[in-house]
């Protein structure tokens, strides 16, 4: 039972980490970043290269790839998304197209078929209440909590965080009080990409580095976001906890095959009952038709 609680918590934090980068960009700039999975994969791949081909220490490679992906996210906004900002269809096409391009190029460069993996932050496991739990899972819980706390603090107590919130509430009003919407959206895309790498560094050490992981991450980010309500951090956390615990309970009581089925059913059910997601309040008036 204690194991179920802790494993469920780790799984939920994993999902929350995956979803937060997507939701962050969406809530601030209104851009659905479908290249999110590609950023996740690219960040992991860069870390792998830095570690194994260049022989850099772990922390330098991790921070280096986070920074590089921040720049890539920002560049993608500046040179692709900014040109078509506001035209929703084009935004979707451009981010999706670039995402698939990055992912499939990584596949084509012989990325698949090798068992490549990233090291854990601290290898080994500890025993809690008679159950062995990998350090990585505990680290995911810790990093997830720290990340959410710092995001919360940043969006409430710093100038740029307040500007982000202003923009997410009403972009035109934010523009009229002198906030540079393009700059803010650029930074938010960068942060979104960096968050994708953080998620990758946390999650990939539990398994292998696979190309299809990019699409899985995107699905999970969308599932959690749709369930909890995109653009609401509370919604993301609640959605992640619902899916995370549902998956853990299913995996323990039935079999791990049914995990995806439960996720699928949860999403379909929520869409039928409350299409904007559990906490997607701000969309109700405007977006609901």
């Amino acid at each position, binding site marked *: 039972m204690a194991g179920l609680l802790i494993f469920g918590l780790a799984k939920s934090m994993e999902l929350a980490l995956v979803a937060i980068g997507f939701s962050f960009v*969406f809530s601030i700039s*209104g851009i*659905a970043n*479908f290249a999110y999975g590609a950023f996740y994969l690219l960040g992991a791949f860069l870390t792998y290269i830095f570690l194994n081909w260049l022989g850099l220490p772990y922390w330098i490679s991790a921070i280096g790839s986070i920074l590089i992906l921040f720049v890539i996210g920002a560049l993608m906004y500046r040179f*692709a998304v900014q*040109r*078509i900002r506001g035209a*929703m*269809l*084009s935004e*979707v*096409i*451009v981010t*999706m*197209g*670039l*995402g*698939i*391009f990055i992912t*499939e*190029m990584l*596949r*084509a460069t012989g990325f698949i078929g090798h068992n490549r993996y990233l090291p854990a932050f601290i290898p080994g496991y500890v025993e809690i209440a008679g159950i062995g739990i990998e350090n990585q899972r505990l680290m995911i819980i810790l990093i997830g909590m720290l990340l959410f706390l710092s995001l919360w603090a940043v969006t409430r107590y710093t100038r740029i965080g307040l500007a982000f919130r202003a923009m997410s509430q009403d972009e035109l009003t934010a523009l009229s009080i002198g906030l540079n919407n393009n700059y803010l959206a650029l930074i938010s895309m960068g942060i979104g990409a960096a968050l994708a790498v953080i998620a990758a560094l946390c999650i990939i050490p539990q398994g292998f580095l696979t190309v299809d992981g990019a*699409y*899985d991450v*995107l*699905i999970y980010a*969308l*599932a959690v*976001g*749709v369930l909890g309500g*995109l653009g609401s951090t509370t919604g993301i956390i609640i959605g992640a906890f619902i899916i995370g615990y549902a998956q853990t309970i299913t995996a323990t009581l039935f079999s791990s*095959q*049914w*995990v*995806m*089925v439960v*996720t*699928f059913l949860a*999403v*379909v059910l929520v*869409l*039928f009952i409350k*299409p*904007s997601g559990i906490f997607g309040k701000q*969309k109700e008036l405007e*977006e*609901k*038709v």
Partner: protein
Amino acid sequence: MDKNIKQTRKERIDRGIFVRSADIFALSSWQEITYLVLPRVIPFALLLVLPLVLEFSGNSYWAKVMVVLSILGMMAMSWDLLRMAGMFSLGQALFLGLGSYVAAALNHYFHWPIYLTIPAGAIGGALLGTTFLMGTLKLRGIYFAMVTLAFPMLVIRVIQATNFLGGTEGVSAAAFPNYWVAAYVSIAGLIICFFGLRRMMNSDWGLVARAIGQDDIAVMASGINVFWRKVQVLFIASGVAAFAGTLMTHLLMYAGLSSFSLEYSILPVASVVIGGSGNFAGALLGSTLLTFATEALRDLGPLRIALYSVLMVVFALTIREGIFPYIERRYRQFERKVDAI
């Protein structure tokens, strides 16, 4: 403005023949009749004749490509239809896969003959697809895109996990009795869909559907049930795509997880972005170009999908209107430079 630099601008003027052929007097001259009729007849004449030519000249591989072309053309048109009504789908493969699986399951488990599985698959796939996505129709725009992107991938995982309908193996199905049935059923389907959808979108019903895509609140204010109209559009569009799916089942003789794959979600989007949207002709042109590109680039394997996505991004960023509207404009108008005043 600096007076020394000569400034020019482009001016577009209708071609004489376009103006002359605009009304009934076009009938008075062969040139004008040809101008009007040729571009409308040639593509469909080619569609009807090419299978004959290819099959009898021994190119049975390229003859089969004609069936694939019709399947992708129908997918692209169904995507375009959804887009017109304001639903940006990123998971057209869902409908394709559903149609494909329904047809295969009816054929494999219940031994229905092929002339029953195709319509049953189209209707069954449309019903299932509409039911799955009905919840999202209450929301506008980006939500639909996100949910539709996730849906086919989730369905793949569900089938893999539960071993339902053959699991990763897929379901085998009967083949078409011969090549001619395959070719002409799919080409007839394509042509009927093309003209039917065009006519539908120009009727009052289609006007409302287009209006929903542009301003759903205005449509609601006119006392029209937007949700119900969207369900109707979704049903028709998913029916067209599911029909394409049933054809694919019987062409490949099985329904597998690959019909839910991302490639089939991206191809229709890329077709319409490249070909140009709004009147289905662009969708048809785009899917034709992409089909031939796919066949020509068989060797590239998975890189093809990377290529489509780059093409799609380039078109979305630069040539936003697409190829067909460009050709159409050049056919009707010419450009010249005049002094800017």
